[in-house]
């Protein structure tokens, strides 16, 4: 039985002020798989994320989520359809507590919409679910601390919590272990593995240890294109990838 395609990128092009950043990206993610997106700086990985999540509009190409075309949709519409993303530079609500951050991420999926006629107290479903998520990422003890006052690692954990809180089926993580020590990275990897069970994961990463630990498949990007997408051993053996990395190393 073939797994359904969760996320499909077809021929994505994007240029900024005439500079082409994405020159035709093709990628297909099957439901439930974990895919790491690697490549040298400037390859267009973050731009691809921005495109898929709706922050930028593609010049050409298509993005489909569970078969639904989301190429022209706004970020909030895409999120409501089941795609959540994290940010490379931590993007939280600094004046709200950790608990509030996660709870806000839950409100839409739980159907609260723009309601202003009902209060959400500590006993509501949103609150109990938020606490559960905080428990999962290990921030339950810091639930009432303002997000802006958490340590860097705690903020990264909170960033993850906010991303996965609403139970999105497709999750995009942008360098989740950036700036972390070996130990912190290992903890984050374990956490990611735990919270993305059954979800489709696309992850930008530079840390190859993390990539080999987590990813089912690895997609390699260079110069605005995906030049290879395969399992780890095959990627290691892939000539184009070798040329890319060895070439770079030779030219410093």
């Amino acid at each position, binding site marked *: 039985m073939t797994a359904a395609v969760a996320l499909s990128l077809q021929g994505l092009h994007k240029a900024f002020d005439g500079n082409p950043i994405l020159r035709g990206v093709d990628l297909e993610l099957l439901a439930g798989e974990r895919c790491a997106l690697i490549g040298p700086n400037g390859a267009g990985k973050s731009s691809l994320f921005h495109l898929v999540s709706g922050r930028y509009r593609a010049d050409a190409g298509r993005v489909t989520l569970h078969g639904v075309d989301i190429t022209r949709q706004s970020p909030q519409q895409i999120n409501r359809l089941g795609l959540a993303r994290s940010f490379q530079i931590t993007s939280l609500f600094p004046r*709200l507590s950790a608990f509030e951050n996660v709870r806000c991420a839950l409100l839409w999926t739980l159907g*609260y919409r723009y*309601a202003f006629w009902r209060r959400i107290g500590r006993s509501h479903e949103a609150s109990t679910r938020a606490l559960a998520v905080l428990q999962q990422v290990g921030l339950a003890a810091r639930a009432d601390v303002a997000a802006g006052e958490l340590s860097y690692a705690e903020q990264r954990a909170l960033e993850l919590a906010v991303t996965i809180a609403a139970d999105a089926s497709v999750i995009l993580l942008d360098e989740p272990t950036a700036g972390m020590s070996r130990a912190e990275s290992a903890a984050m990897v374990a956490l990611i593995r735990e919270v993305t069970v059954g979800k489709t994961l696309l992850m930008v990463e530079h840390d190859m240890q993390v990539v080999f630990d987590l990813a089912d498949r690895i997609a390699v990007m260079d110069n605005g294109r995906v030049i290879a997408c395969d399992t780890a051993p095959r990627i290691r053996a892939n000539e184009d990838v070798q040329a890319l990395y060895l070439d770079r190393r030779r030219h410093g």
Partner: protein
Amino acid sequence: MKRLLLPWLGFALVLLAAPLVFPQSAALSLLSQMGTMVLLCLSYNMLLGEGGMLSFGHAVYSGLGAFGAIHLMNRMAEGALAFPMTLVPLAGGLTGALCGVLLGYLTTRRAGTTFAMITLGLVELVSACVLMFPEVFGGEGGISGNRVIGEPVLGISYGPQIQVYYLIAGWLLVCAIAIWALRATPLGRILNAVRDNPERAAFIGYDPQRVRYLALILSAFFAGVSGGLSAINFEIVSAEYVGALRSGAILLFTFIGGSAYFYGPIVGGVVGVLFSSWLSAYTQAWQFYLGAFFILIVMTAPGGLASLIDQGWRILRSGAFDTRMAVRAIAWLAAALPVLAGLVLATEMAYQASLGSLAEAPLRWWGWTVDVHAPLPWMTALLLMSGGVAALWCWRGQGGRS
């Protein structure tokens, strides 16, 4: 829950007892004005403090709400409509909300400084339009009305000021509770999120523009209620109710009070009315004092008076307030008072000298008659100020309070 109940009970008690403590008619009038201004500032802080939306045109909603209310009152007086006076502020609120629906759609399409500039343009636009249609808005003279209509109900006719005060206090309490409760709703929480990081808010499923729009409509409702109360209180509504000057005052007072705290606008509204309505009876220089005070707050306590109160409360609670701190605080006050006294003396003399009705009229100050043309009072003022400043400068190094 009990923790929250106490302050609210206290607030209700203060509202109830205030006219008993200050029964003079001038005081009642002042209290009534404070009530409407506090509600207006609370409604404004829904945008500024909760939503991070800096609006220069909030008076549009309270002003148009006031016009709506006064027109309703006139229809009621003509006998064309039977409507309880007590509920007229609701009509003001609905008018404000309607304007929020129409105008807010234009303004909330953009955020940040662009939003602020649109509101500036809008308030000038609306106040100019108000003057262009004297049939609806009464031109320069405005529209007047009567708050005593028909027979008194349960002894209440709203003729006496004390009855109007309790009407205002009642609406203020109900609306304040509503504004407080809104913070705990999904919309209230998401509004805070949009304030902190609108992009992230989009990525968790909410349209920041829609959130701001709804917040503006709700805020405009409460502003309209405040406008309706003003219409009842003064029985006249004119173009200046809708103007940029009034919008600026709302911003000023809310900021002075402190926009990061729920009770900040309450403090700000009270202080603002004290300056503009109470102080203005005692001195010509009140606008100067207001401006100077405002600049002082901006430069030394940008979190507003509420932040100072909060700081003081924390220090007291933590028990860190020992004798040494008390001594320092007293010393600081002892140095600051002469500076203030000297400054006020100099300002009053300057105003008297420049704008006094009679060129030779002396200044009356707390029973003393001060000749503004003699050098001695000026020297005194200078001495007071320099002495105080010198003391402050010396004590600066020792870590003055706040």
